């Protein structure tokens, strides 16, 4: 299985502010009633975007900028802290990715969301609080300027600005070397796996 090396994402960006945005908000549970991930893209942030009366609510995902990202099938979402907390549902990053987001920049990410995203080949880079505020403001003020998320150099840049970014070393390694989906590596270790299993009484049924 050969995967693309993801060293850089350069695309238009959308700011979706707020801390502790949970995966129930990203994709409400009723859309988990499915046996495939197909079609999840259009329901990303559904209940934030549409009111109970069926009318559109003011939400960044309803903007023209979001529509451009959906059309281009690439985009950077700039978020707050603890993004993607709550449920482990991979449906959350799947829906944003299928919508068109190919990178996230935020203050921090909930761990399961982070793992689910990077395993899809979607980098999640963190910025310091001050830099994030600056990046967020820049993105809103300059919707036509592409943002570059550089996984190799660990920077986020836009226009004349460059911010220092972070990501777990193992995730960075996986993305830039085209090994973000670990299955190939995991399948290689069969003998070692059997050895570990053999040392565990409960696996042997004792």
């Amino acid at each position, binding site marked *: 299985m050969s995967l693309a090396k993801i060293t850089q994402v350069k695309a238009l960006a959308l700011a979706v502010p707020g801390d502790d945005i949970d995966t129930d908000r990203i994709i409400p549970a009723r859309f988990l009633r499915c046996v495939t991930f197909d079609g999840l893209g259009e329901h990303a942030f559904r209940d934030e975007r549409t009111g109970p009366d069926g009318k559109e609510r003011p939400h960044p995902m309803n903007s023209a900028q979001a529509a451009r990202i959906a059309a281009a099938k690439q985009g950077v979402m700039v978020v707050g802290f603890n993004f993607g907390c709550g449920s482990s549902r991979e449906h959350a990053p799947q829906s944003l990715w299928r919508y068109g987001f190919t990178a996230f920049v935020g203050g921090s990410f909930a761990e399961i969301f982070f793992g689910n995203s990077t395993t899809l080949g979607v980098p999640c880079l963190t910025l310091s609080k001050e830099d994030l505020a600056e990046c967020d403001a820049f993105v809103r003020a300059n919707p036509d300027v592409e943002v570059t998320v550089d996984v190799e150099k660990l920077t986020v840049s836009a226009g004349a600005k460059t911010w220092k970014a972070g990501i777990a070393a193992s995730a960075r390694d996986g993305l830039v070397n085209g090994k973000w989906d670990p299955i190939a590596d995991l399948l290689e270790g069969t003998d070692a796996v059997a050895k570990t299993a053999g040392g565990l009484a*409960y696996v042997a049924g004792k």
Partner: protein
Amino acid sequence: MAKTLFQKVWEAHTVRKLPNGQTQLFIGTHLIHEVTSPQAFGMLRDLGLKVKYPQRTFATVDHIVPTNELKEPYSDPIAQEMIEALRKNTKDYGIRFFDTTTGTQGIVHMVGPEQGITQPGTTIACGDSHTATHGAFGAIAFGIGTTQVRDVLATQTLALSPLKVRRIEVNGKLAPGVYAKDVILHIIRVLGVNGGIGYAYEYAGTTFDGFSLEERMTVCNMSIEGGARCGYVNPDQKTFDYIKGKPYAPKAADWDAAVARWASFASDAGCQYDDIKVFKAEDIRPTVTWGITPGQAVFIDEKMPALETLNAADRQTAEDAYAHMKLAPNTPIKGTKVDVCFLGSCTNGRISDLREVAKYLKGRKVSPSVKAIVVPGSQLTAIQAVHEGLDKIYIEAGFEWRGAGCSMCLAMNPDKLVGDQLCASSSNRNFKGRQGSQTGRTVLMSPLMVAAAAITGQVTDAREVFKV
């Protein structure tokens, strides 16, 4: 060298170091349910892979099961499709399925312990963020995404990085009317909803020593609400007693060796922790959430926070929360009108929860303005409760007695809030829309507090209502 349980379990399950620096970790026990597994089986088929250790994966169905409809086909065709998909997948790959027809179906985090599948010193993964529940037995248990479910099915391993360990010590005796649920809500309130990122939580201290396994499960269950992917309690005699005799418990000839092995996984005296936090049981009072994250909580006799007292980031979330909850800052939460009461979930849907509430419910009546439902977390719990006559107590009090499942914890089945109804809930998440209505409101609390809310039609202090 003295080690923590986390380190010992990690080492025992380490297969090798991966090229990217992560650990290939053996997952001894894999639990699956109908929501996060079908796509994983799909990926497996696409890649032409098999299930490597089918006897180490166990399945049940919980999220979409209707709780007031026992016959199939269910009136909801999607629910029927999802359960059929799991039946097919488990049959195709030879995986044990605790199906609705077996009397053993239930919320996945209840089925593992009930069957004796959940054991100390093991690694457990499940495509569900509340997998840490199993940590109550001294297992390292965590939630995973669907692609990782595929990884476990195909290889019985995961690519992971080790966590730091924070010891959370609670000492002393809880006052009457204060429960394990209040302990974890309090811990999350103090340490924050993202305070646990990067950590496994080791819960310890005399309060935990005194807790039953079911109380320990309630606390471990909500580790994720505090940002910690995994939480555990060191195994002790209570743990071993709980497992003994369960269907998947080691048999007589293997029992002593198993207990010795389990005990050896407990954290050593003098081991190093990355962080330690200490709480006093006496300081904890019945706790309720007022907002849209589990950390937005107060003691029942406190006022909700004034906006001026919060820092900028918390203030923004709080403003959002007050608007959604239709509550006012700096006012008491006590007295807030309640429309629905939900007693159940993997946090508080176990037999001890049902017994504790029933003890106080006898002779009381649910307020006519309230819809109250009780949903045992598993069929075994329901059967036991009926055997003890608890169902009658609930029904006489005006609760609806339902079949086993997740139900209104996340409302993937027909149990949903309507409009902006406010629900007093024994579950674990008060996120916007969590209980099935976009404008629905959730107030998390202990089971007895839910019962007090049901009777009075208000968020109130169970200690006063029931003279605890």
